[in-house]
């Protein structure tokens, strides 16, 4: 242990030692200390960054991306993010005169565009008629599979007298389709074994007139049939009405975050006031107040949110944001009230407040100087956890059509509309769902981090 020569050891009395000034860390205030701990928590910091990012997206976003969320782009309905947006200029539509098309089997009579897809095929000996189907999925099943839904949507039945041809003009999108032509035998039986299939890649077409109307054609340049023009840009695609998803997500964020932040803020505030009152006055008042809070807690939350929505009624043209806010506040406060009351009762026991009380400070001063700072941490954590749950509630209610009313976008009402087209254009559901999930996730992790940071107890490795 000691390398010194024992003969050099000094056996004279030691001087007075400093009486235990052994503070390892510099003393920080409660909040500085909590902030220091929070900063060391990477998950909480990432979440904080996400929350700030969301606020920027909501508040600054619409100024940068100045597209009206209600504006409908009828050329581009339900297009996914990053879809090609070039369109070919074509002649205005003219009826098909069924000119003979060279070749055999199921084939295209002309280039397939969003204007029309023209199919021709050959005769079949036992065909009484032909059934034409269109599918968006490639045919993976063996042809014995005779269920209709495995072939996509039925487009029509063609009798051979009308010619072996079919023209599809039904809501064509610039994607790949699979057309099936199935002969119909005696007794209306589909002869699936003799089915023919063709893969058709549809290109987007627009007439010169339409392109000019929509301002897609620059006036200086001469544009003609066969040229390509660029359609309006929708970075996150459009919904089934052709509305820009990015713009709607931004406005939806306003609604969702407004409800998600303002409602908890109000009801936490109400809860703090109610709980402080109960905690301070005590006695029978406290009992009565808390009993009432117990009853409000016992009301099934979502059912009464719906009931309140019926009570406030949403007239035509109203968004339903304020009714939801009020309902959330009416039903949300008791948890905070209980918590704050508990805290106040606990703090009241502690000596420093009794000391202050002995010195004759008025109650208001007591609250401001001692109670609030000491319960603020708990309240902050409660608020952080209340936000994701309010966002969830908004989304849930709007999703079942009981919340924010269309056309006002909120993430919940967007999901509601998105689910109808989920199978063909999933992005209309997935994008708002991602926003809800990421926001809720960020606030939850931030809440965890805050709770740990404000919890001054020493923790072991977890």
């Amino acid at each position, binding site marked *: 242990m*000691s390398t010194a020569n024992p003969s050099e*050891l000094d056996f004279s009395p030691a001087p007075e030692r400093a009486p235990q000034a052994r503070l390892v860390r510099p003393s920080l205030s409660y909040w500085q200390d909590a902030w220091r701990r929070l900063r060391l928590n990477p998950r909480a910091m990432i979440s904080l960054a996400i929350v700030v990012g969301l606020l920027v997206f909501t508040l600054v976003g619409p100024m940068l991306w100045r597209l009206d969320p209600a504006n409908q782009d009828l050329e581009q309905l339900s297009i996914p993010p990053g879809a090609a947006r070039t369109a070919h200029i074509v002649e205005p539509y003219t009826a098909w005169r069924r000119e003979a098309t060279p070749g055999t089997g199921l084939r295209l009579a002309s280039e397939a565009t969003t204007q029309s897809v023209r199919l021709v095929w050959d005769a079949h000996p036992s065909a009484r008629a032909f059934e034409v189907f269109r599918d968006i999925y490639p045919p993976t099943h063996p042809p014995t599979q005779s269920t209709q839904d495995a072939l996509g949507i039925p487009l029509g039945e063609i009798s051979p007298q009308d010619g072996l041809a079919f023209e599809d003009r039904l809501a064509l999108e610039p994607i790949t389709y699979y057309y099936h032509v199935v002969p119909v035998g005696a007794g209306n039986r589909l002869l699936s074994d003799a089915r023919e299939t063709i893969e058709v890649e549809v290109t987007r077409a627009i007439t010169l007139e339409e392109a000019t109307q929509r301002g897609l054609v620059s006036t200086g340049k001469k544009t003609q049939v066969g040229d390509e023009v660029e359609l309006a840009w929708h970075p996150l695609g459009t919904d089934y009405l052709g509305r820009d998803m990015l713009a709607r997500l931004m406005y939806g964020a306003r609604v969702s975050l407004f409800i998600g932040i303002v409602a908890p803020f109000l009801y936490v505030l109400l809860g703090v006031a109610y709980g402080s009152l109960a905690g301070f006055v005590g006695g029978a008042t406290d009992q009565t107040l808390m009993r009432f809070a117990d009853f409000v807690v016992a009301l099934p939350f979502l059912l009464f949110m719906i009931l309140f929505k019926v009570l406030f009624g949403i007239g035509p043209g109203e968004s339903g944001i304020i009714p939801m806010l009020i309902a959330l506040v009416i039903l949300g406060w008791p948890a905070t009230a209980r918590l704050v009351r508990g805290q106040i009762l606990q703090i009241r026991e502690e000596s420093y407040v009794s000391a202050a009380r002995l010195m004759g400070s008025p109650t208001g001063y007591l609250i401001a100087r001692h109670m609030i700072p000491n319960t603020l941490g708990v309240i902050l954590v409660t608020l952080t956890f209340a936000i994701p749950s309010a966002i969830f509630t908004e989304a849930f209610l709007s999703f079942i059509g009981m919340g924010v009313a269309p056309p006002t976008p909120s993430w919940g009402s967007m999901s509601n509309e998105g689910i109808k087209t989920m199978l063909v254009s999933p992005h209309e559901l997935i994008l708002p769902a991602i926003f809800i999930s990421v926001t809720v996730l960020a606030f939850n992790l931030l809440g965890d981090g805050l709770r740990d940071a404000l919890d001054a107890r020493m923790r072991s490795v977890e």
Partner: protein
Amino acid sequence: MTRPLLEVEDLAVEFDTHGGTVKAVRGVSFALHEGQTLAVVGESGCGKSVCVQSLVGLVPMPPGRITSGSARLDGEQILGRETVGGMRVRGQLIGMIFQDPMTSLNPTMRIGDQIAEPLHMHQGMRRRDARMRAIELLELSQVGEAEKRSRQYPFEFSGGMLQRVMIACALACEPRILIADEPTTALDVTIQAQILSLMRDLQRERKMSLILITHDLGVVAQMADEVVVMYAGKVVETGSADDIFYASGHPYTQGLKSAMPQNQDRRAQQLEPIAGSPPDLFDPPTGCGYFERCPRAMQVCEAHQPPDFDLGKVQHRCACWLHDARATHDS
């Protein structure tokens, strides 16, 4: 002198925590003889519990770690082993009772089942026999209405009664050594005396050895044959109870004594708590651990670890520079 039943040498235990490594036990040696009571004393946090728990593998690892040392029972190493000579170290060779009886029993299991558990699961006793034996053990620990009590749950018992249950539990497999970690700290004074005398009686009856951890020198006076005084993870003095009480050689032991109420003393009571608190075990001092609080410290003590000095009598040892021939103060 006969060979000790249990011989612990140079035991060291550390914990990894967020704040760094806590060196909770730093090279502890002591010996326990057959049928005797060894008291381990020291302020709270000086490593008493960690020391004995590491002997039977009750220190959670991780974060805990035994970094050195050996513990021999009848010459056989027991550190880190589950069984020795076909006997389980925990329960069969060494039984243990803890400080807080209220939380040390499973709240959702009947008392009788908790006592019978090891008998049934390990000694191959049939369930019914194990239950009967549990009732006998409760009677032995002076729990009234043992049969009825064995069917009750812990929350229906008082703290003192629960500690009797814990004793019954620990004695179930008739261990050779009983370790009692502050068994009376959480109890009322009157109950304390009952529990201590119960333990002493049982020990004599069964020729068991007892390691009694306490920070109460009164308990030591009442129970101990040998005493180990610990401070900051180290043994600072060992000796017979008489040595420690009447001829203590370490300023810390002397400090503990003057902090103890002495009922037999006629003179005016003057309790002198030791000023200050034990050192930080994250970064233990290089010299004497007691340096900062020692009223008789010397320059040498700050940076040099005092060796063990033999204080003449049989097995009375003390780690303090005052016993060096060169010391300026006389001890």
